[in-house]
């Protein structure tokens, strides 16, 4: 009972923080209030995470109250294996985002932190919602703070970028809204129950052609947010123009709302259609991986490199989800968190250098390792984590995803169908390309002749070091001890597999070249 109150407290803490901001007089007070509220939120969430019982199917810390009773809409929130890591990630990044923006944001400070609170609230709400109506409300409400964050504190073309972002995402959402209404209506027709509850909707199975339409509407909305190529064109603009905090939130958490949507709603709600489309989803994922990596290779704007690398990395998540293999699914969940940490870290570091040198042009930089040794160490660590060096979180995620993809592709290969295997192999080239663009970037950025625009510059201060130490610690924690996180998500991954796969390929995982439970850390198998 008190546990569910804790989850509610965590969810509404940002709202309380917003109210606290109203009477604050000075910018300093605003920053302090925001930071400590966020830190408190993270502390509570960490406590919640430790309380979370692995191996328990179903929701924990659940609250369910009627909201719009006549429509069957409930205020229903809870934690399960799907969202627990993402909630932790969101709460973890909160104080870092706030601390990272201390020196960068000097205009309309109060509004800025209010919007950071608001986006934190809506993102957490999206993750913990267990009612489709509530989910949609949070999902769509997220647009408002992001619109303002990019539009007010962004770069030169901020208005273009933010309008593009909103119009892209809103288009997906509006079709999803139609699909939601139709889905609930058909549930009512089929069973007589009017409900927006996820659990209720999972149980209801529609004819496959209707599933296809509804999945298309949901998938469009989620795919825009992930984003999957070719719906990605808003992302580079939004990332480049957003202030550092905006980029960090965007890359760290917001993009995961798309993949979370797929794993929690898109595929399990429409399993037959999802299975039918799984090869296409895989194809889209592989295209995203390779295309994103290729584009990252040729960028000259350092923010764009990381933006395109996000597309590539989230392609792995989609690949793992589409593989329907337990290892792949778990890998996808880990990869979501891992990307959240590394991309957030890299964007923060880009922000730090931008504050000092006022340019994002890669050609303007060189040999930073000699001038900014501490910065360079952190940058290198995060770069290697993004590449997926063993012992970092990136390795755990990518490796498990690729393993899952092979596991899934192998039976169909032995059955004479080689397309999935070809796709899995192609996805591996993404790892090589990833190493290429990131190392190429790091090489030109950190080594060679010293070029520092607007120099001389000072190395990282205490605040910045503290932020990065925290992030790097998390990266290694997830890389060295993924078992802990995997244990908490295992039941959810199994559930997802069961929902979507429904004995369609009973022998699939059994005849896979590598059997299930032995692979956990997978050190050095690459």
């Amino acid at each position, binding site marked *: 009972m008190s546990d569910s109150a804790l989850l509610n407290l965590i969810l509404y803490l940002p709202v309380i923080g917003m109210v606290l901001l109203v009477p604050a007089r000075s910018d300093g007070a605003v920053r302090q209030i925001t930071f400590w509220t966020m830190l408190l939120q993270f502390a509570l969430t960490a406590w919640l995470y430790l309380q979370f019982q692995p191996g328990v199917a179903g929701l924990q810390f659940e609250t369910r109250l*009627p*909201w*719009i*009773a*006549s*429509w069957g*809409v409930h205020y229903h929130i809870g934690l399960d294996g799907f969202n627990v890591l993402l909630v932790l990630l969101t709460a973890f990044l909160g104080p870092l985002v706030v601390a990272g923006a201390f020196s960068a944001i000097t205009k*309309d400070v109060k*509004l800025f932190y209010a919007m950071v609170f608001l986006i934190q609230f809506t993102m957490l709400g999206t993750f913990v919602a267990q009612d489709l109506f509530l989910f*949609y*409300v949070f999902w*769509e*409400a997220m*647009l*408002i703070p992001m*619109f*303002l964050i990019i*539009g*007010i504190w962004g770069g030169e073309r*901020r*208005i273009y970028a*933010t*309008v593009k972002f*909103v*119009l892209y995402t*809103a*288009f997906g959402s*509006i*079709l999803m*809204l*139609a699909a939601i*209404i*139709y889905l*609930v*209506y058909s549930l*009512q027709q089929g069973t007589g129950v009017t409900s927006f509850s996820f659990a209720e909707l999972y149980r209801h199975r529609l004819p496959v052609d209707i599933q296809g339409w509804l999945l298309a509407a949901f998938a469009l909305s989620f795919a825009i947010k992930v984003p999957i190529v070719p719906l990605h064109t808003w992302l580079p603009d939004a990332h480049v123009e957003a202030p550092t905090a905006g980029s960090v939130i965007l890359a760290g958490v917001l993009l995961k709302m798309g993949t979370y949507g797929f794993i929690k709603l898109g595929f399990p709600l429409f399993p037959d259609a999802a299975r039918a489309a799984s090869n296409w989803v895989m194809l889209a994922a592989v295209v995203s991986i390779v295309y994103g990596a290729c584009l990252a290779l040729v960028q000259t704007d350092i923010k764009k490199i990381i933006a395109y690398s996000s597309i590539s990395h989230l392609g792995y998540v989609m690949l793992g989800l589409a593989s329907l293999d337990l290892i792949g699914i778990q890998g996808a969940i880990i990869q979501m968190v891992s990307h959240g940490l590394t991309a957030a870290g890299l964007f923060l570091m880009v922000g730090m250098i931008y504050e000092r040198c006022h340019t994002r042009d890669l050609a303007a930089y060189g040999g930073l390792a000699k001038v900014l040794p501490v910065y360079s160490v952190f940058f290198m660590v995060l770069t290697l984590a993004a590449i997926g060096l063993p012992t970092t979180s990136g390795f755990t995620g990518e490796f498990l995803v690729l393993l899952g993809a092979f596991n899934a592709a192998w039976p169909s290969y032995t059955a004479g169908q080689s397309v999935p295997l070809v796709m899995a192999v192609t996805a591996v080239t993404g790892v090589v390309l990833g190493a290429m663009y990131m190392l190429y970037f790091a090489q030109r950025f950190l080594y060679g002749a010293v070029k520092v625009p607007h120099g001389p510059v000072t190395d990282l201060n205490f605040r910045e070091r503290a932020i990065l130490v925290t992030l790097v610690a998390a990266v290694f924690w997830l890389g060295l001890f993924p078992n802990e996180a995997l244990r908490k998500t295992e039941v959810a991954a199994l559930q997802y597999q069961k929902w979507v796969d429904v004995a369609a390929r009973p022998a699939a995982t059994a005849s896979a070249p590598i059997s299930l439970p032995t692979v956990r850390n997978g050190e050095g198998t690459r």
Partner: protein
Amino acid sequence: MNWSFMIVAMLPEHMLLAGIVVLIGLDVAQVGKEHSGLVALLAVAVAALIAVMLAIVQFQGSPFPGHFSVDQGTMAAKAVVLALALLLVQMSRDEFGSDERFYILLLSSLYGVLLVSSADGFLTMFLGLEIMSMPVYVLVLIAYQRHEAAEAALKYLVLGGAASAMFLMGASLVYGATGSLALDAFVQAAQAHDTLASVAVVLVLIAFFLKAAVVPFHAWAPDAYEAASVPVTAYMATLIKAGVLLAVLRIFGTATFGSPLVDLLAILPLISIVWGNLAAMRQTSFRRMIAYSSIAHAGYLFYALLGPGPTRLQAVVFYLLAYGLMNVLAFASLPSGPDDLRRDRLDGMRALFQRQPYAAVLLAIALLSLAGIPPFPGFVAKFLIFKNVIAAGYTVYAVLGLVGSYLGIYFYLRVIQLMFMGSQPETPSDGRIALGAGVLCLLPTILLTVFPGFFIGLVGR
């Protein structure tokens, strides 16, 4: 049928009438004119309170059979109308001070709105529509601040007259076909496939489309909205629209429609949604933009007629509540500029947040809600309408309507973009906002956002 019943059934109307009489008395006697705003506010408040109470006790009956009847649904509708009127009167007090002519006309028009929503026969309906419309022609002109006001009022008058003529023609055709002036007879005639009745239905519908400014009968609205003073524009955008929609619901009620009529009822509102939202993108005047936005909203409101019969009144009344509230909030938080022309320019609203943060935030909430972005009430209202449309089986129309509503997001966001992200304009539209009305709107907005279910339950089954 006893007298007390007849009086109670029309008590909200009587309260307005009492208010009008007192106001005229004050005017004639030339005393206490400075309190005329307060008198109007009081009359509307009492009427609203009575309507709410009558709705809660589920009062129903027909004091004048065949002409006037009330039930819980109509009482809830009246309560919503009067509650919105209360906010409008409060806002007008900031704007007009104590111009008693204004309040007399406003209350008269309001009386028409209430009459229309209870009408059972064409006679009462026509009376109500005329009582509702006539004062507005004058209101557009009253205290005019622009030369175009006369032109706009004339345009409105001519088109309003044309609408009335068409309504009368339709009613007389129905009378010719059925020999009855009851609204039930009209519905039956509408369902029968006979030429005379079809012509009558189309004529009556066009009359309402004209009055509600549905494309292609919308041309008067942008001019009239732009030229009228701010409270009058707000009145036209909310309560006149409410009156027209309640009248339409009164006539078509819970009837199910056949194929050609359904298409007429879906396609014109759909075009209205799309065109209203597209045209609003290009506007430079705030009121003109709201006019096009209200054209689009008329489309959503008529969409409610596609839903299953018993759900229509609830959907429309809840939509009117959310939409009206947001419109009043938007107009109330519009800063009064150096003159009317500049106050109206979207350009002058640039960087409003830096100058008047609270006005900008209030305006932003109103606009986001009008755009239908959750969690604001506009979203729930739109959701209810489209839910009903899908439940009635018109999935394609619902999807098209939703896509049309997507087109609207841009221009609402553009205003927010100007207010929060623009650079300071040369001639900023500074000045006080109707703070009283704004705060009065904000409270129900928050309640509607947090407890939408409660209000949905209030306005219907």
